[in-house]
């Protein structure tokens, strides 16, 4: 079973993602509400997949992404952003994010992206 780490500062968003993943047979191994937490959680849990909001307090998504990728180059991270943040997404992809999702997220769209990343 694929192990997923969900990182988002919004509780609602995390819940939403959790539901989507669990419904599709993924296991949520951890949740993080800011960049620093996600870095620590990754070291500890070594998940198969991370979804990460690009805007997070304490440490933003891109910095966290870079930090994780530095230590774990194989990390599979999907960035989540709001509409109109293309340049940030571009930076994230350049920094090694595998794919991205634009809010509002849906189950279908999420699974399409996840499948493409895992394939």
């Amino acid at each position, binding site marked *: 079973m694929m192990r997923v780490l969900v990182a988002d500062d919004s509780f609602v968003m995390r819940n939403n993602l959790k539901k989507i993943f669990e419904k599709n047979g993924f296991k949520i191994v951890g949740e993080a509400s800011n960049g620093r937490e996600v870095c620590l959680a990754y070291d500890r849990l070594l998940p198969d997949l991370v979804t990460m909001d690009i805007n997070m307090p304490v440490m933003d998504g891109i910095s966290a992404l870079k930090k994780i990728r530095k230590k774990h180059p194989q990390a599979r991270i999907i960035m989540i952003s709001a509409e109109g943040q*293309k*340049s940030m997404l571009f930076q994230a*992809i350049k920094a090694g994010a*595998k794919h991205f999702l634009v809010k509002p997220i849906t189950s279908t769209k999420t699974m399409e992206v996840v499948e*493409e*990343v895992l394939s």
Partner: protein
Amino acid sequence: MNIYSLLLFTSFLIYLYLGFQMFRIRPMPRLSRIFCILCFAFAHWSFCITFLFPAPHKEAASFWMKCSSLGWSFIPALLLHFSLILSGWEQKFKHYILLPLLYLPGVLFIWREMTAYVTAKDFVLMSYGWTGVTPTDSPWVIGFTLYYLIFVLSSTVVLYKWRKKTESPREKKQAQIIIVAVLCSVILTFINETLLPLMGIHSIPRIPSFFILIWALGMWYAITKYRLMDLSHSFTGEIVLEELLEKLLKTILENSGAKRVVILLEEDGEMLIQGEVDTSIERCKVLHHIPLKESSALPCTLLKEAESTSHRLLIDDALKEEASTLDPYIQKHRPRSILLWPLLSRGELMGLLYLENNTTPYTFTPERVEILQRITSQVIVSLENATLFSSLQRSHDRLSHWNQRLEETVKERTTAIKILLDNAGQGFLSFGQNMLVDEEYSVECENLLGESIGRESFPALIYPHHREDRELLEEMLEEIFEEKEPMRQRVYMSLLPEEVLFDERSIQLEYRWIEGEGGERQDTMMVILTDITEKREMESLIEEEKSIFEMVVRVVSNFSDFNVTIEEYQDFCHDFMAELHCTRDPLEVLDTIYRQIHTFKGSFHQFGLSNMVHRLHMLETEIKEKRCSLEPLDLHHLEQLIPREEMLSWLDESLALLKNILGDFFSLQEKTIVIDEESLQKIEEHMMNTLDPAEIVLLLPKLKKLRWKPFCEALKTYPDYVKDLASQVEKCLYPLEIEGGDMKVDLAYYRKFTKTLGHVFRNAMDHGIERPEERRALGKDEKGRIECRLFQENGSLVVEISDDGRGISTEEMKGGGELSSAEHMSSQEILQKIFEEDYSTREDLSHLSGRGVGLSAVKEEVHRLGGKIHVDNRPGEGVTFMFSLPLEDHGVRPSISYDHHFLLFLKGAKRVLEEQAGLVMERPVQSRINITHRMRLFDLTTILPLKGMIRGRLLFTVERELCSYMLHHFALWDVEEEEQEDSYNDLLAELLNIIIGRSLKSHSEWGDLIITGIGEQLKASQASLKYGGEGMLTYIEKTHKGSLGFSFLPGTGDFFIREE
């Protein structure tokens, strides 16, 4: 040996050479045989004379002279024989006559020479040697001279005649050469032999055999140069069938004496005429490829016969043949000589030659047949090769033709694609890693992005002013071109801008990655640009309209709630400062306000006031930011933060919008909203045009129900009515009470029915309620009671009207009425009878309730609405009528104004008829719509039923002439003359369908809601249609080819056709 001997010896060698050469080339034909013999005769003569001059003594000279006679005595005969064979005259003589006639004189002269002498009586020795002395008085000398003269001249004449007769230029030339050569040599011989000795000149010896060399060479020249007989090697080089055939035909024509030669060759089991040459036409025609059976210019039966037997067929003179046995062609054209020659290759027939001479019989002499034999035997191989080559060439031609076609097609397609791209309304451009747009971009790109975009940087074109966007796009494209992993590339691609605003136009961008193949072709990005400005504008416009109507419907259907919300909001705007003063903690106040605004936002959202929602949302965000900024707040700040005036003006804006649509009746002061029917109708119509079907189905009934009223309202006039009635008939009655009836219905739908209820009340009053004194006697209350109850039961609307009168006496009905057969009926059945027309139990018909007419009207209405009547009769106590009507939610189906749709339909019709049927319509359609009950029909009419949102029948009627014109113009199918009449119906139905399809297309929101039935055809010329419904919409138009008419019969009413 002297010079003369040498000359003669040389001549001898030449003759010998010519003879042998001719023998070697053409050993067979008699002509060349004669020529050979002639040459040997010349040679013999020359040879003998060579030794005459230097003879040692007179005896020797005499011997050579006698010896030479074997040569010279036959020469004229051989010449004549040659000429006769050449000209074909030899045929006319029998061999046993001709040969002695020709050669006997020669034999005679030889005999004379051997035994005595002919020309040389004595020999004298001259300076050059021995020479004969010719006696002038010898009859033999004269005879010999005459023999020579007659034969040579005869030959000349024969050749001359042949020359004149023949049509072959070659033969003419040959005859000419031979004549000239013969005459030359004869004249020279005459001068040498006779003239010079007579003149006394004896220094020149007699050497006729030398002069005759001219003769021999002339003939040789004629033979070799003009191919008198020699045909070898002439065909072998020819490989092109066309040239070979031409050559062959010409050769045959020249050598066979035929005036017309036709060659047929077999191809795929069929004889095809492949060439023809005729002396009457200058050129010969080859490669016709005409099948034999299609030709009338050939004796087909003969050819068929020759084809099947492979035998040659010769007719010397067709005129002499039995006419009836001949081929039709021969009977008609009467050719004289005919020769059919099969061309055989290894025993197999590969073709036929047809030779014909239409003037001369016996043309095809054995000599010519022999030539033909040789020609054909030679040509067969060449012909085979050429045929093979020809078929190869044909395949090659076909291949190259296909190839050419293919190239052309590719070219066409390329052009077509370019045209397509240029006119697609989309721009296509591509660029490589350097991001410079390739020169090959479609024209539309220039319209979208500016004048010339070739070699311009794509990001700079897309974002000329936004540096950040441009740089981001550049970076992204760089990554895409660099990236090797397909998934990452796709991820980057999905980040590329999908829409840009360029020069106030929305341009949609789509990207296609075109993988390079290495080498010359680099990776390319293709971009498709689409102008979606209009689409976007339309979308926002539609969105706006939609939201407005949603708002209207929601506000109107929840008007009281809306009113409360408005009041609360206004109060809030005016008074929230009061709250501020209640508490000291600004944060708490702010939270309260925030919550309130949030609530209002939700409320307005519920009513669809999107403007308000948007504004309040902005305000909310602002407050939230302030709240989070953690700056110290005081009340003063708060007052500034909340823009109360603005908040009120936002509301006013929205209310103005509502007022605009709902009219002046919209007033906030009233608790209820009053909208007149007309504006409601307009709103409905407008909604129909802007919303999509799903939304219409949802929203329209709500709006529709606004027009519904409590059912009791339909009966509210009856209490007064009943009161009036009672006083008229002098009956005492408690006031009529109407109980229930709060359910809202479309009153218009039930209006007819509720009107007929008057009859029921009248009946109750008239027949039911007894007079006061009667009632008293019966122990009843003096005042009668009529009750009316309205209620809903099992989805039915029930109207119950009861009285406490005398009830209905079924006995009385049986006896009094015309119901003699009523005995077997149940009482309920009998009771139903009172609703029958013409039934009345009372003889004194009051002016109030006339007979049964009234009740029958009620029954009719109830049945129309699909309801039932139940009568509860309690004799002596009263009657209860129960009318139950199905409570149909008929309001869901939007009622649409038909003329509006008819107009749209006509506009569609006009376009279709103009574009597809080639008509010219004269006037704009608006002005021509009439509402009528009658319409004049033209010759042909099609009636198409429509169901769904628009119910009714469409009618299309045209004059026959116009229909015929449209049919030819429309030309969907090929129409035979006799089928034309039947096609008219198809045409009209087809056109109607197209028209409806078109009109629906321009109003896609109706599409699902209209179903067309099968057209009904009418052929009633000069008839008229009378519509029994409420009125039909008609439109008559005169076009340049005749009149046509459309009409729409709404509903399902009946119509009648009346022929006039």
